[in-house]
């Protein structure tokens, strides 16, 4: 700390394990499947049928009033032997690292897509300690995630983007349309099996 400044965990606060304990105390131990802590950020993996229940609990009892973000991640090929997806010069996750180790990561979760929501405490905080917490559910292709819009209205655009870019069906969303891509677009561009540079050229002369 002399002339270096530690970037510990910008604006996350301490990992909120207390909230996780209270969730399990109030809703049962099976409300949380797994706790992941990385760089001071606590992620709770939830069973999909308890997702809305836990988020409602977080909003009503734990004062997590701000939904900061909803992220959908496609883990297709995260651990597999895929050296360059789209030909020779794509991602090569099996390439040796500087230290000579194989850098194949552990599986991130049981299914292909991880849908995570990050919450923050804002309004009720008086001591400047705005803690954050992330919850996550796992889905496969064709399964649907309950929509967070009835609990946190600001999930609206995030979930529409998740549908648009990743093809996640958010059940119960009032207006699940494409938001960024054109309405007649085919496929979901941010999936890992959607090629880069392979999309048809729009508005070209060829009919």
């Amino acid at each position, binding site marked *: 700390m002399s002339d270096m400044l530690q970037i510990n965990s910008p604006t996350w606060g301490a990992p909120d394990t207390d909230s996780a304990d209270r969730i399990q105390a109030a809703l049962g131990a099976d409300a949380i499947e797994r706790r992941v802590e990385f760089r001071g950020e606590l992620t709770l993996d939830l069973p999909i049928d308890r997702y809305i229940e836990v988020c409602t609990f977080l909003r009503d009892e734990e004062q997590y009033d701000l939904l900061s973000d909803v992220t959908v991640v496609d883990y297709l090929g995260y651990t597999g032997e895929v050296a360059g997806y789209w030909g020779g010069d794509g991602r090569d996750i099996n390439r040796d690292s500087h230290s000579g180790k194989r850098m194949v990561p552990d599986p991130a979760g049981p299914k292909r897509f991880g849908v995570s929501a990050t919450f923050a405490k804002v309004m009720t905080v008086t001591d*400047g300690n705005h803690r954050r917490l992330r919850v996550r559910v796992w889905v496969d292709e064709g399964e649907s995630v309950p929509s967070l819009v009835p609990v946190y*209205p600001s999930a*609206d655009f995030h979930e529409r983007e998740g549908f648009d870019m990743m093809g996640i069906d958010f059940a119960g969303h009032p207006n699940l349309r494409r938001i960024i891509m054109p309405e007649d677009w085919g496929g979901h561009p941010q999936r890992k099996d959607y090629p880069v540079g392979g999309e048809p050229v729009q508005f070209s002369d060829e009919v």
Partner: protein
Amino acid sequence: MAATEKKTVVWPQQDILQPVPSELWPSSDNPDLLEINLGPNHPSTHGVLRVVTTLDGEVVVGVKCEVGYVHTGIEKNIEQKTYWKAIPYVPRMDYLSFFSGETAFCMATEKALELEVPRRAEWIRVIFQELARIHSHLVFLGTGSVDLGGIALLFYCFRARDEVLDLFEMACGARMHPRYCQVGGVAEDLPKGFEQRCREVIAFMRDQIDQYYELIGANPIWLARTVGVGVMSPDFAIKMGMTGPNLRASGVPYDLRSANGGYGGYRELGYTPVTKETGDVDARFRVRIDEMSASLDLIEKALDGLPEGPVITDDRKVALPPRHELHTSMESLIHHFKLVTEGFEVPAGEVYAPIESARGEFGFHLISDGSAKPWRVRLHGPAFVLLQSFAKLCEGVYLADLIAILASIDPVLGDVDR
């Protein structure tokens, strides 16, 4: 004109789930309704935003925002790049507070790497983040006043904006999108004469800000257009995910520069959030003007106490070695070559590092698989979120007020569409 007495605000009841949060759907059986289309290139839409508006006479009854016109697939592109080659993409999203984007991405990467950044670099980052914030607020103020029919402020603001951009040019060679922030620090030290020039600009800006207040502060036309228009209660703002100056204009002192003790250089410099009480268009303009003053104070404080030392980490696996070493040191040459061709590996995991940009919480959700390229990068852009509350704010206002409200919430469409 500063607010003298504290007013009691009667917040409107904003029932946000009717009919959907981000859009207003009028009943379709009324033959008098007129559907008009603002944008995507209407001059007052602040970028390529299309607002499908339904009017009953001159009153707005239905609003739909259509976004996506400047979608460039930046998130997908970053997945194909090594970390340090992804940095130039980032400021193209929020092109008004460009330096915040660079810093947020570098901070997320540093957090995943558990990398320490030299103190001087953190302070330099603060200076440029605040300059970018001033730049963004100046553009907001100028274009916002044009939307409200006053063109004079635009020329004042763009003159001052040029001075701010000159500072960027002086330090990084580029006026916008400087790519000055690096993982582990900043690319180069401040040039000679920067501090003096910066202080001149601060003095100039202080004078300018007084003039902005003179132009709009007591102008009866301005006040008639802004006071009491588009009132957003704190409860509503939080429910709709609003952060940044829009939230602080409703009286919530939430600012990531001070929350949890701040981040980076703000931890030592300290910051007190600027808030306003009324939550209307006027408050959203004033909170930004006051934030410019606060930013000037921060820059001055950072210049006064700017620590000596290196500006980038000495971890050669992450940061390029100094240029002169390449001629004499074999290791430096190898490090340089490896970094340029392969980049650096980031441990597998998931981090979300939010910082306070000019519009609010600007964070990168970075998922790494342990390789040299990010597995997935998700940008949480404040403009994307704040656009959700736009429809509800416009319910039952006049069409001219819709333009004022859109100007006051300050969306940047590059940030919305990415």
